[in-house]
């Protein structure tokens, strides 16, 4: 893997960048304006052959970023991950992915991952190599990566065929003498993690509502991190609720504002999942020609994608979510005071 370009992305440096001693002026640890556009971020941080981890899990998935990866025709990717749904199936069908290490692949409750099956079973469009771990195993491979240690032990996966067919997992007897067997889960250190969040500031302080899945670990395990978010907000907004920052600026390289960036999945506090949309994907991905038509129709720049979905439909998804969960607290908003009870 050739080292990724560490050059600063578009935008002026943050005023007090000089006050931070550590980190190069353009690296992830710098306090600079990291905002850019989706095309630039994917072009720069997801080169052909890269290993990639994606955030979310059937909710808050970076779907728009993945479609951009497909649009830029990236190839030879290794996806290091936990459970993956539509975005993975689309990338596999489009031929972007050679290898997957993770715990679960499908698309949804109402459809299988047809492209994943076609790639693994029939080598269409080419073979997809699978390396299974359990869900806890996937969390631990990112924990090990985030800790910068070679492995983390667990009691999961013992006495099964998972270590048998995943040669990276070793089963050993506890070296400290308990006599217990333990499965050693090797560190995952993806070249890049692509994570969608509710909001972030220009420095990359990324705030998440609701569940976090493994995103806080993926961001630390990866060499580079692209955060896409529903909204870029002022740093003061972040500072009012620092407890919501799950990924701090020093782990982030690029920030991209991508409203409805998880569609057709949910974004907690913002919009509900669009089941009829991914149902259609499930139906059209059964057949190779239909899938290629689907790609032509939907793998387009994100603004165009949203236009095709339609403002009214997006507003309905927002209304659905508003019925379930409150929007994130906003800086100085009177509603917040009322809502904090």
């Amino acid at each position, binding site marked *: 893997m050739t080292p990724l370009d560490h050059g600063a992305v578009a935008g002026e440096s943050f005023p007090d960048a000089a006050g931070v001693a550590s980190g190069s002026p353009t690296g992830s640890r710098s306090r600079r304006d990291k905002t850019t556009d989706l095309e630039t971020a994917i072009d720069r941080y997801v080169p052909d052959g890269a290993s990639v981890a994606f955030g979310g*899990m*059937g*909710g808050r998935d970076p779907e728009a970023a993945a479609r951009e990866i497909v649009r830029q025709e990236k190839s030879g990717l290794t996806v290091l991950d936990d*459970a993956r749904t539509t975005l993975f199936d689309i990338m596999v069908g489009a031929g972007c992915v050679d290898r997957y290490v*993770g*715990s*679960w*692949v499908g698309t*949804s*409750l*109402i459809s*299988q*991952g047809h492209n994943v*099956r076609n790639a*693994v*079973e029939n080598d269409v469009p080419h073979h997809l190599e*699978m390396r*299974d771990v*359990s*869900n*806890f*195993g996937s*969390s631990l491979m*990112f*924990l090990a990566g985030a800790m910068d240690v070679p492995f983390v032990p667990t*009691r*999961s*996966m*013992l*006495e*099964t*065929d*998972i270590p048998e*067919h995943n040669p990276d997992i070793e089963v050993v007897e506890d070296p400290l003498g308990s006599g*217990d*067997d333990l499965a050693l889960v090797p560190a995952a250190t993806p070249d890049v993690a692509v994570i969608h969040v509710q909001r972030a500031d220009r420095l990359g302080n990324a705030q998440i*509502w*609701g*569940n*976090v*899945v*493994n*995103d806080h*670990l993926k961001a630390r395990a990866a060499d580079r991190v692209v955060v896409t978010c529903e909204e870029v907000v002022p740093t003061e907004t972040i500072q009012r609720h620092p407890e919501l920052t799950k990924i701090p600026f020093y782990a982030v390289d690029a920030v991209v504002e991508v409203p409805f960036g998880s569609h057709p*999945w*949910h974004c907690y506090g913002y919009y*509900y*999942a*669009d*089941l*009829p*949309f991914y*149902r259609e994907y499930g*139906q059209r991905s059964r057949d190779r020609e239909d899938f290629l038509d689907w790609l032509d129709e939907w793998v387009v720049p994100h603004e165009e994608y949203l236009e095709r979905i339609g403002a009214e439909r997006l507003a*309905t*998804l927002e209304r*659905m979510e508003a*019925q*379930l*969960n409150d929007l994130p607290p906003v800086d100085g908003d009177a509603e917040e005071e009322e809502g904090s009870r």
Partner: protein
Amino acid sequence: MTSRQHPAAVDEAEGRTPETLSGADIDYPVDVDRPHETAEDYSLTELLAVSAAHEIENGELAFIGVGMSLISGILAKHTRSPDCQLVTESGYVGSRPPGVVQSISDTVLGVDALFASNQFQIFTDNQRGLFDVGIIGAGQIDRYGNTNSTVVTGADGTYDHPKVRLPGSGGSNDIMTSCGRSVVMMRQDERAFTTDLDYRTAPGHLDGGDARERAGFRGDGPSAVITDMAIFRFDDDGEMVLSATHPGVGVDDVRAEVQWDLQVADDVSTTPEPTRGELAVLRAIDPTDTVLRGSDYIYEVGFEEWSERVMEQWKAFQDTQ
């Protein structure tokens, strides 16, 4: 925030373990005549969901996945076990979802949740033995309850080039290893109830006897297997025993869908039928037939109608809470 006072909630406030509700004590959150009477018509899928819900006792921490297992958990929470706490692998604990869950991070899981955390934390707590019961699905199972949800290799296939690539472990391996006890939900099929798993994804009772204890597993492993034909439990050696058959299903019908010489309990019973109340709740939380699939409605419904039905349903349930 007002909540209806179930008898079990009162128990919990006084520090007693809440008892699982039955009969007239169940307060169904839907309007239905004679809710405690046996339902007249129900599908096998609905019976499966109700039977799995009966495996969750009140006050338990129940670790559940997407689809049938989650609809069973939600049903338990809205009926016999209002004080069970649902645990999901994406990070939520204690949710009271007003409707079915489409995916493991479905935002309905945020409703009334006690804890919104992350997958690492949930599985750490699971490995520590903090959860009572887990419900998983599987593609294949053997007589000791070991399961496969990874690959069906077929005659000439391999792990790398299987006949059928299944979704993979998800949380099933971790739940079957460490959760207090586990319930497996699957289709009854002679190819699925096999003497020879193509791949062991999750550990049941391994080779039987004290094998789990020797392996150092904290959880007790599978306690029940629920299919569209029957309910199985496990004997002291960890081998599956036919415990109940669903109404209209004979013991021989089940035997025909199992590859090995199946043990049958002396007092094999008939699975209790759903009550009218349980069925009404089940259908209410799945107004678009997303999980129950009594029809093709979910494949045909348009966006507008889908969103309206779902929102109406949520509102109806939220009004009862």
